[in-house]
């Protein structure tokens, strides 16, 4: 039997490694199950994976869950400013009642989680450092995710929407003054060549994105017990690897920027609190308005220590 797994990343990315571990473990278990990985959007485009997954036309995917926020507004909580403080906190969120509530939402779409994982990101400025809300005022900014756009607009930034592959060019020509995306994208798109200052995800970080390995639930339930066990065992191993590598990635990106001669800035606890206050007035508020049981879900997430 064969399962098809689709993702958008290159085969050197952590998220590919996560998929690969699961595939290799399942193959090693010799349970007549083969996972075929289609990377680099070779099967589906990044944002077009969730629908086929939920309809059983695709078996597995590694996906930023917020991409499907238009279908399940609750998913927007998985890319909410200041909700996750650091990677260990993220790991605790994965085991919380909040995550259980999200998994219930996924089950409505016939989707389940195999591997949990969060990745972090930061900010770059073309002319100066961005650590607190005042820094972003009046800058043309590209933000990763709806909630961040709302918060940054609230800080007085002007929002320009473009894909992360366009950031390099736009910063080079001066269309963009600042950008916010994941640590790995900053490195893979060589943004350090165009940035003056980088605010990486450190002990305190604002930008965390939940990017689990998902599977179609009915497909999983259709497998025999041995196959399910092999998948779950592989997933457990992959999840440990994911957390470990996610932590390393932020430091690695900082190192790359430092070597390229880019100034490195750190966000202080005060800066973080100021952003979070702003987020409460903007993105949190909007989220609660747009989502049926939004307040309840938000409280559940905030309750995780």
């Amino acid at each position, binding site marked *: 039997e064969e399962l098809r797994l689709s993702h958008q990343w290159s085969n050197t990315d952590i998220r590919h490694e996560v998929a690969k571990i699961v595939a290799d473990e399942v193959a090693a278990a010799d349970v007549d199950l083969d996972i075929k990985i289609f990377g680099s959007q070779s099967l589906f485009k990044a*944002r077009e994976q969730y*629908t086929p997954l939920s309809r059983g036309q695709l078996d597995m995917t590694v996906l930023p869950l*917020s*991409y*499907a*926020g*238009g*279908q399940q507004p609750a998913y*927007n909580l998985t890319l909410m400013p200041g909700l996750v403080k650091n990677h260990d906190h993220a790991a605790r969120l994965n085991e919380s009642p909040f995550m259980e509530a999200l998994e219930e939402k996924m089950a409505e779409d016939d989707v389940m989680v195999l591997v949990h994982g969060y990745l972090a990101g930061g900010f770059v400025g073309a002319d100066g450092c961005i650590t607190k809300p005042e820094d972003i005022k*009046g800058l*043309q900014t590209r933000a990763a995710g*709806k909630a961040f*756009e*709302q918060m940054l*607009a609230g800080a007085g*930034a*002007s*929002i*320009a*929407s*473009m894909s992360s592959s366009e950031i390099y060019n736009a910063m080079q020509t001066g*269309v963009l003054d600042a950008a916010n995306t994941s640590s790995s994208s900053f490195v893979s798109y060589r943004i350090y060549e165009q940035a003056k200052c980088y605010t990486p995800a450190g002990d305190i970080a604002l930008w965390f994105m939940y990017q689990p390995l998902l599977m179609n639930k009915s497909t999983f339930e259709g497998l025999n017990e041995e196959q399910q066990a092999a998948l779950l065992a592989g997933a457990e191993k992959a999840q440990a690897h994911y957390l470990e590598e996610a932590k390393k990635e932020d430091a690695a990106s900082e190192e790359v920027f430092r070597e390229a001669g880019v100034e490195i800035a750190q966000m202080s606890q005060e800066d973080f609190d100021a952003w979070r206050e702003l987020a409460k007035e903007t993105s949190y508020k909007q989220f609660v308005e*747009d989502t049926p049981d939004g307040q309840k879900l938000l409280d559940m997430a905030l309750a995780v220590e």
Partner: protein
Amino acid sequence: MATQPKAVQSRARKNLFVNTVDAISTLAGWCAAAMIVVAVGITCQMIFVRFVLNHSTIWQTEMVIYLVIAATLIGLPYVQKLRGHVNVDLVPLMLPPRLRFGLCVVTLSMSILIITVMLWYGYEFWHFAWDRNWKSDTVWGVRLWIPYLSLPVGLGLLALQLTADLVAVILRIDTPFGLET
């Protein structure tokens, strides 16, 4: 040889169904052209808002994408009517008239079949988005059934135009593949 626009307008089509479909496709062509022009305007407006006013540009990129998609899909029947969809007619040219007629009927029927299948699933996809109230995952958060509507509409009109072309060929109003005999 020949694939590009030929003098299609000159032929006098004398069938009510064929004429009506031609008219609908022309109307669709106007809509497609208008959508492209609007997309030009919105993109320039976006550059102005960002570069001159230094304000946020939230909805423009998405709007322009949907306009170009809609222009493409809604423009399909019109371009079919103009014979603007490129084909390779090396083989049809070499065939004797009867075989050419037969091949033309077969290719048009196959085209109608595949477009109708896609129309069916396109409608289903649109209905899914409508039923579940899907929105785009952006600040603008457009209700997706609106842009998805161009799928059933465009494919439906294309199937209609293909049918009219088939009828025209069978009734000998039009020559197979638009080739001169």
